[in-house]
């Protein structure tokens, strides 16, 4: 029995509260949470809500670090609450606040819409002139594993907003797009299936774009999925500068490739079973 509760202790949660109806500014509220080893910050918040203060509001969903909903400022660093064990960051006091550099809707809930709107404005999808392969696909896009590696890391982004919260430029500049949108611009620019670089470079090379990034590196430091948005932005800067200096040219998007016309069906493969539903 003793070993189960070994390391269990009371942790002081100092939570930033803000009620848009009753408050003019955020303030701190303290809760004491009994913490067992292995409990996450999110578990502690659930405990507070169920046992102490049901009015506490925050976002969460998957509770396993894949949805990006529970981004918060935990002991001064933007992190996912579900991904952070309490005993890994403190043994006495845990301060929690909403992600900085966003407007607060209530308590720990930031307004992420500006980030999402900027993300959408960069056309985060495959842009091609030949619309048919996207709309009525019959063949595959021809992409090598090396070409996939060039953007795969940046596609792991879960849009949690931690990188924008950590960015020093975002702290002051309202026009800066932020690490996540710009990294996603790059994710599509280097995707060989995509042909939208010339459209995206107008935004990425504009006043809110990559020129506002000065490689403080905090975005990559806090990213919970190892997406490394700082790397994406620097690589995109290189593309933009080389394009401007005419040292590099944007290639055409990759072609589609159909089945090999000379391929023969292997011997011994059984035929597919008959349909169980009537075919039109």
């Amino acid at each position, binding site marked *: 029995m003793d070993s189960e509760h070994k390391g269990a202790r009371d942790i002081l949660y100092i939570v930033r509260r803000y009620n848009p109806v009753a408050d003019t500014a955020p303030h701190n509220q303290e809760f004491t949470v009994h913490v067992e080893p292995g409990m996450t910050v999110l578990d502690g918040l659930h405990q507070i809500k169920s046992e102490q203060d049901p009015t506490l509001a925050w976002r969460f969903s998957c509770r396993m670090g894949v949805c990006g909903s529970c981004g918060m400022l935990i002991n001064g660093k933007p992190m996912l609450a579900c991904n952070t064990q309490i005993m890994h960051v403190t043994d006495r006091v845990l301060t929690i606040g909403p992600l900085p550099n966003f407007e607060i809707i209530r308590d720990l809930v930031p307004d992420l819409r500006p980030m999402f709107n900027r993300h959408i404005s960069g056309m985060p999808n495959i842009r091609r002139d030949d619309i048919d392969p996207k709309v009525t696909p019959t063949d595959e896009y021809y992409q090598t594993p090396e070409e996939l590696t060039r953007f795969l890391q940046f596609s792991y982004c879960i849009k949690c907003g931690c990188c924008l919260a950590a960015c*020093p430029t975002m*702290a002051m500049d309202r026009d800066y797009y932020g690490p996540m949108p710009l990294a996603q611009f790059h994710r599509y620019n280097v995707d060989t299936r995509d042909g939208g670089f010339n459209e995206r470079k107008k935004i990425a090379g504009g006043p809110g774009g990559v020129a506002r990034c000065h490689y403080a590196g905090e975005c990559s*430091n806090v990213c919970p999925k190892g997406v490394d948005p700082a790397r994406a932005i620097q690589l995109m800067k*290189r593309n933009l500068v080389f394009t401007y200096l005419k040292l590099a040219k944007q290639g055409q998007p990759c072609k589609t490739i159909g089945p090999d016309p000379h391929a023969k069906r292997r011997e011994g493969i059984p035929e597919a079973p008959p349909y169980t539903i009537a075919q039109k």
Partner: protein
Amino acid sequence: MADPKRYDNRLGLKGWWGGGRWGFERYLYTLHRLTGLGVLCYFVLHIFVTSSRAFGMRAWEKWMGTLAGPFFQGGEFLVVLACIFHAFNGIRLILIELGFAVGPAEEPIYPYKTSLNKQRPLMVLMMVLAAVAVVFAGYDFWLLH
């Protein structure tokens, strides 16, 4: 339904200074900006002082006499320190921001190694070279002259 009242949670200038839990490169960013501003202020004054040579020897010697004082010598040494840091950090930033020192995209495997880890040897090298330059500058400033 009307949008509820939001609270602007931007960090403001405090976000430029950092909060103590930031990485080393974040502080290099802040220092790069401060040293840049310092060198720019000195540079504007430097244009006026050195332009006095167009007005002849008397004007030049008058300025050099003024600037030989300990206050100005001390100030100039601080400018030299700022210049050295800004130059070496600038070399590091040029290499990073042109994508040469950040490494290619790679599969993230926990514990994550980011471009910050990739550029760290370059950062250490630049800081060491800057320290060496500071030692030389100190020797030149205070011991040779």
